[in-house]
């Protein structure tokens, strides 16, 4: 085991714990947008696609980089766009016609 592997594993485990902590507070109402947002975040694999393209120098390398770029580009752009579309639906204020005050009227 070399130290850089230990460092990477440490970062991985701590990030998992941070993830558990932050995500367990997301209400059930938002679970679909949450998954979609998480989906967009794993689009960061596009960074990996860029790095493999930067070292590719033959047909195999180019092909792999190309497919990875298509996949990751789709993931990242599509993911953020559709999450944004969904979350806008949750931002709509209830229109009038509701006589009683809403429980949590925090204006955004």
């Amino acid at each position, binding site marked *: 085991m070399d130290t850089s592997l230990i460092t990477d594993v440490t970062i991985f485990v701590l990030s998992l714990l941070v993830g558990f902590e932050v995500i367990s507070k997301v209400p059930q109402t938002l679970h679909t947008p*949450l998954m979609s947002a998480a989906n967009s975040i794993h689009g*960061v694999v596009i960074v990996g696609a860029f790095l493999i393209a930067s070292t590719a120098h033959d047909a195999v390398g180019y092909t792999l980089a190309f497919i*990875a770029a298509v996949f990751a580009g789709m993931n990242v*752009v599509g993911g953020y766009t559709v999450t944004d579309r969904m979350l806008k639906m*949750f931002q709509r204020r209830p229109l009038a016609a509701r006589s009683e005050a809403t429980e949590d009227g925090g204006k955004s």
Partner: protein
Amino acid sequence: MGAFYDGIALIYLASATCFVLGLHLMNAPPTANHGNRLSALGMAVAVAATLALIAHDGTISTTGWLMLAVGGVLGSGLGLYLARTVEMTAMPQLVSLFNAVGGGAAALVAIADFVRLAGILHAPIAARISVTSVLDVVIGAVTLSGSVVAAGKLQGFIPSEPIVVPSGRIVNLVLALALCAGTGYILSGANSVVTLIGIAIASLIMGVIMVLPIGGADMPVVISLLNAFTGTAVAMAGFVINSVGLIIAGALVGASGSILTKLMADAMNRSILNIVAGGFGTGDTASVIGAGASGQVRSVGADDVAIQLAYAQKVIIVPGYGLAAAHAQHAVKELADLLEKRGVEVSYAIHPVAGRMPGHMNVLLAEAEVPYQQLKTMEEINPEFPRTDVALVIGANDVTNPAARRPGNAVSGMPILDVDKAKSIIVIKRSMGHGYAGIDNELYNDPKTGMFFADAQAGLRAIIAAVKMLVGVD
């Protein structure tokens, strides 16, 4: 290393911070959209930093740039088109598709890196690279093919019923042994690209065999699980190319997917292993139904329903996937508006597995402009049923079956909505057909229950017309 690389590393740290804070802001609907935008900002920054990095290193060829530009634009355009046009009922398919491409891209990163190293190194590839490469390829490939099958099932290209793969367990066992052998060979120091490709192919087949036998109602668990897999694959890709950004982001997604998988499995009182092993009640849980359970039911018409609803004080609507399948969300909202105008208190009881992915029903109702404050979770709403005048069940079945409180049947122990505790219950349903668990719903035989036999959309329209007639609104 130099100041430039330090700067890039700090920028990656900033983008990881944006991801974490973005997820944190998703803990309440009003701030959730800011969270997503912050996360997108983090992504843009990470991409820009990477472009600066590869331009600075200068190892990329013109063809490399061309591949990136064309591939990136093509993929982005496709993603943008799908994201803009997808119907909310089809969200689970889209999320599956993004899981597939994310996992696929992560696997390709490891393969490309392995091919490159095998070509230039004469010594064995370091274990820290080869171990994580194999893990990345296995998890990424399983996610890719599994998610494609899941999306196909959700879209209806592949039948959503559990498909039993002939001797699937034996095939899986053989594949698993082959994977172990291949992994062992690579770890022994053979820089064998062919073996890695073999591992990828075996993993792709395993993904298909894993998801084919899983039925439609188990989809929320499967999608969550594949989401966790994708995150893990991306984290492994981070180990391979030594990118802290990928490790952090992958771990966050892995955590999110794991939490959702656990929540979904708990909501169905099933273990994850049991679901992945396939089939509902395929064990020895023989359906034990009390005598006369399939006895008489009381059928009601639109006018009866309208009277009950219009003169109620408190109504809880219990939507299930059948509601979404009939595209009746807007009709529900219209009925609720009508009732609220008369001073009836309306709320919605959302079971955690209503829909085809975690939280799906909430999005479907939010699209119909139902205020999220009215969407109640099972824990919130169950104490309210005893003081509810009418519970209106639309397209939900197994999650309302009181038989779940007794041992010895296919839904035993599953957390349910206490619909039977309401003063009166109305069920809109096309027929007495069974839910996914394949057993009778005892709720329908309850003397308090009125069955309104109709398609969700048509039935709601009839009720809306009857309410308007009855009370003369507008």
